C-alpha cells in the first residue's frame, strides 16, 4: 500500500517536470555568485561549498506548492483517509517520495555546480555527504510546510517565510562541515536532520487533517 503511494508520488514528481526545474534553479542560483563577486578562483573555491548549500535550500522551496495542495483540492487525502490510512503515514510516504525526486537530481547537479565554482574534490565529497544527510530533512520540511500552507493565497511566498528559518540549522551545520575537522558538524547536521524527519510527518498529517475539514 505504501509502496503504491510512494510510486505514485515519485511518478508525479518526475512527470511534472518538477525535478528538472529544481536542478535548473539550483544551478542558476549557484552561477549567480561568480557573477556577483567576480571570477577570483581562490575566493570562489573558498565560498563555493556554502553557495551550494544556500542554492540547495532555495531550490528546496520550489516544489512546495505542488506537494500537498493539489491533492487536498482533488480529495485524494479524503479517499486515503476513508481507506483507514493514517495521514501521518501518508505524509511520511510523501516525504520519502519527495526525497527520491528531489535529492538525486540535486546531488548530481551539485557536482556540476562544484565544477562551475572550481571547488576542490575533497570539498565536493563533503558537500555531497552533507547533502545526503541534510536533504531528507529538507524534503520532510517541504512536505510539512506544504501541508501547513495548502489552500492559502500566496502559499508559495508564505512557505518560503516558514521554511527558510527552520532550515537554517541545516545550512549552518552543512556549511560548517566543509571546514577542516568538520566531523562534529556532520554529527550535528545528522541530529538536526533526524529531528526534522521524525517530527515532520506528524505536523504534516495534522495539517492535512485540518485542511480537509
Amino acid at each position, binding site marked *: 500500500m505504501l509502496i503504491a503511494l510512494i510510486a505514485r508520488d515519485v511518478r508525479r514528481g518526475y512527470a511534472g517536470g518538477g525535478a528538472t526545474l529544481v536542478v535548473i534553479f539550483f544551478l542558476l542560483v549557484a552561477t549567480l555568485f561568480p557573477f556577483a563577486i567576480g571570477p577570483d578562483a581562490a575566493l570562489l573555491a573558498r565560498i563555493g561549498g556554502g553557495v551550494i548549500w544556500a542554492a540547495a535550500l532555495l531550490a528546496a522551496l520550489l516544489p512546495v506548492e505542488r506537494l500537498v495542495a493539489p491533492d487536498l483540492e482533488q*480529495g485524494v487525502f479524503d479517499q486515503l483517509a476513508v481507506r483507514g490510512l493514517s495521514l501521518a503515514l501518508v505524509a511520511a510516504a510523501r516525504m520519502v517520495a519527495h526525497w527520491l525526486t528531489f535529492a538525486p537530481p540535486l546531488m548530481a547537479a551539485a557536482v556540476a555546480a562544484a565544477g562551475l565554482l572550481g571547488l576542490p574534490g575533497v570539498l565536493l565529497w563533503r558537500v555531497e555527504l552533507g547533502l545526503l544527510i541534510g536533504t531528507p530533512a529538507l524534503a520532510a520540511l517541504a512536505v510539512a510546510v506544504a501541508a501547513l500552507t495548502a489552500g492559502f493565497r500566496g502559499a508559495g511566498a508564505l512557505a518560503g517565510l516558514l521554511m527558510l528559518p527552520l532550515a537554517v540549522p541545516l545550512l549552518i551545520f552543512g556549511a560548517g562541515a566543509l571546514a577542516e575537522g568538520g566531523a562534529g558538524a556532520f554529527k550535528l547536521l545528522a541530529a538536526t536532520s533526524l529531528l526534522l524527519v521524525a517530527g515532520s510527518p506528524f505536523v504534516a498529517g495534522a495539517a492535512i487533517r485540518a485542511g480537509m475539514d
Partner: protein
Amino acid sequence: MLFAGLDLRLAAGAAAVVTGPNGVGKSSLLRLCAGLLAPAAGRVVAPSRTLLGEAAALDPELPLGRALDFWARLDGGRGRVAAALEAVELATLRDVPVKMLSTGQRRRAALARVVASGAALWLLDEPANGLDVAAVARLEALVAAHRAGGGAVLVATHVPLALPGAQAVELTAMADAPC
C-alpha cells in the same frame, strides 16, 4: 452543531436517502460516516466503506484506466476495474487522460472507483450531479445491483433517485444552531 439525535441503521441490502436544504449538513453526515469527521457525541460503526465525494480524486494527467488502477490497488481489487468501467460505460475511454473527460464522465469515473472498491457500504454524496438522464438510470441500476449483492447505500441527494424501499433521513436546520 449541525444535527443531533440521529440514529440510523443500515442492514445488508438497505438504502437510506439523506435530504434537506443546502448547508444543513448532508455532506457532513456522509463525511462523518466515512470517518473523515469526528462526531461531537455518539459514534459511527461501519464495515468496509467507500465514499463518492465532491472531487473525483483521479490524477488528471493519467489515462483513466491507470488512475483507477491506483485506487483499485489500495482496495485490493485491480481485477474489478475493467468491469467497473463497463458498468459506467466508460470502457472506451480507458486510455484517455482524466483531464480530457467532461464533468459527467469524471463523475462516472469516480462512480467506477466506488463500484470497483468492493466495499460493503457506499456513501454517495450527490451522485447524480452532472449526470445525464441515461447515466442517472445507470446509477440507479448500479445501486440496485449493489444492494441485491448484500451491500448498503447511504445517499445524500437533492435530485430524486429511484431507490425502492429506501429509508428517508430528512435533516432540518437546528433552531438553536448559530454555526
